[in-house]
């Protein structure tokens, strides 16, 4: 075992790693915002990615489509405004959404298509709000796509007038399925804190009012642009807290919010304790085991912190992008957790290099590697147990009740391994 270090180590590699393109955020955001339509302005490459990555969903007549750029668009033989107007009118006629979200891609960046300039004009022309988000692979990774959309959407939230609601009020940001959102709201309500609204809201018309006396708190670690926008543009006050992932994270999250509102939280310690006892059957499976995060969705720090609290040893936290300010509270809790559990401080590797990582995995032989689908089967074939990282993005992992879900995901490969070994099917 490596000797534990005093502080967290931050490194930065080459950025040659595998992750999903940020336009994938349309697949969960169009479901979250029920009256929206997402138009991805890009090429066949983008379309083929969505079609393949989103699998079956594409057949359910989704409220998203490609505006596929052709050679004449690239060489500016066609007028962008006219082309987009034609497509948006068709969307209006077929689906009549309350809002159209344009997703700018690498191609629109490179040819410098002025989406932000065209949108207000077209919006006035066709009478549907148009939001522009530049969720492209030049600048962002996977879940950061949601960040760009929410940051753009934050600009559209109504201004909070003094008469609106009692001050100060709390708005949470980050897209969660409705039952997870209501679970978190309920936990806060138990402490006497009312959640005034969510960004995003299930319907575009219900976006929360924002203003100077509004406190905002994030639920996901990849929302740093949204946080910045809320603070700088909308003058909201950001509550810096760890993220409500795992019972420890959820408790810390509620405590931070409570302290801002001057409330002494009650019953949280017992609640957390109770949960750890309930989770013991799964925690006992991972205790003392080692884990390696290759990094692709920015949830890595929060998950690693939770798993260390479960008694796991984290060798490496690969992460696409590390915003030390937005994640400050989460990083502090990670350090604290390492000390508490007497676990070695993990290396945090920003913009990792998958090739080097695989060398390190070979050397360290971790009990579990959390990785993308490109590497999962080849690693399994080399005797390395893996878990697909993407599942953490789509599973319900927030709040007290969903801690079990995280552990179910983490232990599934280990449990399966055990089943196979016990039945001595170890010939492959």
């Amino acid at each position: 075992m490596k000797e534990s270090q005093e502080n967290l180590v931050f490194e930065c590699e080459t950025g040659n790693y595998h992750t999903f393109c940020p336009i994938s955020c349309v697949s969960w955001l169009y479901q979250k915002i029920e009256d929206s339509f997402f138009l991805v302005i890009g090429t066949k490459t983008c379309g083929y990615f969505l079609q393949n990555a989103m699998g079956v969903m594409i057949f359910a007549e989704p409220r998203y489509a490609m505006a596929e750029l052709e050679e004449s668009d690239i060489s500016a033989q066609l007028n962008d405004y006219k082309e987009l107007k034609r497509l948006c009118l068709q969307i209006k006629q077929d689906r009549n959404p309350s809002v159209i979200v344009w997703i700018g891609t690498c191609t629109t960046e490179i040819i410098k298509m002025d989406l932000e300039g065209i949108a207000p004009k077209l919006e006035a022309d066709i009478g549907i709000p148009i939001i522009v988000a530049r969720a492209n692979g030049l600048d962002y990774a996977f879940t950061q796509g949601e960040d760009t959309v929410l940051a753009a959407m934050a600009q559209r939230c109504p201004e909070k007038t003094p008469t609106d609601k009692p001050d100060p009020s709390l708005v949470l940001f980050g897209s969660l399925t409705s039952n997870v959102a209501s679970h978190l709201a309920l936990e806060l309500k138990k402490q006497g804190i009312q959640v005034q609204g969510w960004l995003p809201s299930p319907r575009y018309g219900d976006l929360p009012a924002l203003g100077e006396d509004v406190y905002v708190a994030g639920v996901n670690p990849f929302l740093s642009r949204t946080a910045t926008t809320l603070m700088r543009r909308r003058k909201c006050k950001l509550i810096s807290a760890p993220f409500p992932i795992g019972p420890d994270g959820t408790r810390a999250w509620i405590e931070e919010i409570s302290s801002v509102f001057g409330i002494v939280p009650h019953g949280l310690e017992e609640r957390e304790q109770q949960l750890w006892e309930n989770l013991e059957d799964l925690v006992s499976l991972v205790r003392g085991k080692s884990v390696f995060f290759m990094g692709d969705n920015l949830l890595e720090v929060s998950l690693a912190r939770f798993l260390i609290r479960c008694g796991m040893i984290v060798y490496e936290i690969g992460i696409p992008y590390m915003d030390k300010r937005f994640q400050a509270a989460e990083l502090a809790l990670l350090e604290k957790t390492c000390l508490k559990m007497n676990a070695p401080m993990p290396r945090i590797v920003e913009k990792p290099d998958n090739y080097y990582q695989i060398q390190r995995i070979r050397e360290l032989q971790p009990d579990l590697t959390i990785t993308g689908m490109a590497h999962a089967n080849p690693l399994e074939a080399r005797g390395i147990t893996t878990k697909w990282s993407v599942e953490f993005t789509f599973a319900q992992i927030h709040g007290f009740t969903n801690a079990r879900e995280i552990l179910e995901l983490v232990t599934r490969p280990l449990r399966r391994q055990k089943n196979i070994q016990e039945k001595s099917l170890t010939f492959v």
Partner: protein
Amino acid sequence: MKLAYWMYAGPAHIGTLRVASSFQNVHAIMHAPLGDDYFNVMRSMLERERDFTPVTTSIVDRHVLARGSQEKVVDNITRKDKEELPDLVLLTPTCTSSILQEDLQNFVNRATMQTTCDVLLADVNHYRVNEFQAADRTLEQIVRFYLDKAKKNQDLNLEKTEKPSANIIGMFTLGFHNQHDCRELKRLLAELGIEVNEIIPEGGSVLNLKNLPKAWFNIVPYREIGLMTAVYLETEFAMPYVSTTPMGILDTAEFIRQIGQIIQNHAETQVKEKPTVKSPMENAVFIENYIEKQTRFVSQAAWFSRSIDCQNLTGKRAIVFGDATHAAAMTKILSREMGIRVACAGTYCKHDADWFREQVVGFCDQILITDDHTQVGDMIAQLEPAAIFGTQMERHVGKRLDIPCGVISAPVHIQNFPLGYRPFLGYEGTNQIADLVYNSFSLGMEDHLLEIFGGHDTKEVITKSLSTAVDLGWSTDGLAELNKIPGFVRGKVKRNTEKYARQNNIQTITLDILFAAKEANGA
């Protein structure tokens, strides 16, 4: 701009990557932004690959946008050269690099000076060609490169193999049932006494490409990919090729006869120079005997098409849609071999529309050339066929319209990469196709019968109590008629009739009531 939800053929770089990763020890480096390497996910998931997909990205980010790739691409190429010791690094442009217009050829030239491996720039334009065209092009490019190189090194062995031999061109990773087809073709050739010289690109080595001219002839099983290479080899080395797809009994026979012809021609020209080993394929009687034996005993498809089962399919209407190869072959099989009426045959290979039309004309009522899936969906809804043979998209259309669908072509899902042996080509392929066709139609028939006799599941409560109260009686004639109804729907009919009787306060179910109930339900 085009509003698009779904596409049949992928972007050009996917085709290039499919060629690269099919070869052994070839590494592709994409010039692309972060996230464009989802090809690795597709290959790892669909093909369930045990090895890392040999594709990496030289990432285009903000810095590259601002100042160009500079050393990045060259560094990535030389790094891969050291790490993986590949035979060839293939630099792959994407839609992004198409518009950046960086001089990728220059990077390749610079990298070549520092690497031990060969470096090539895939010559594809994202905005002009699709996945299939790009794959076809890239394969030809690689073959041409290595043959030119061998020529230059005077390393080219033009002497033909002693025994008749063939190259199989166009077997690919992520191809529709390609691995099974390849095995079936090898078996077929072995039985004909023909050696397989090289199979490219799947599993082949670029270092062996210089052996290609040693074969007597080339086989291009699929229309979409491999033809360019075969044409190049024909012009350059006068190698004949067979491009008939051996799919279905008649086309497989045609395929074998063409091979026979080639070998006979070969023997006639060669014999003047020196006597070669006599091949059984030079004997027309051998060929016809072989075809007949296979058709009678190995393939069940010929017998199947005469059996009563197939009789019931006469005049049934079907729609076929897919890539040019599979859609054309399927149309011919349905119409010529099974007597099924093809109401519409179509393909999304717009670039090969003329060939497709020529193939299917006379075997179908109408022809549809489009890559818009909604148009195909509308056509299916309009024609209401008894079965569809198409891609995964048509399967979903079929689900929505309650029409069974057999998947015959890419684009495909993981279930189209079966572990069991499922070729579409050759004589075993005819058996697989017959099963596929028959299962699709008979399922449709079953569904239809269920429909006639009142639907699949019982949504309404028939009685208030769960126990089967004996308040209903069946008269002898009613019961006799009930027993005539086919077993698998009898229970359903019984329940529906009893429900009808209860609703109408009828105590005894007679023949009249049975029909009245059927009428009431069937309306």
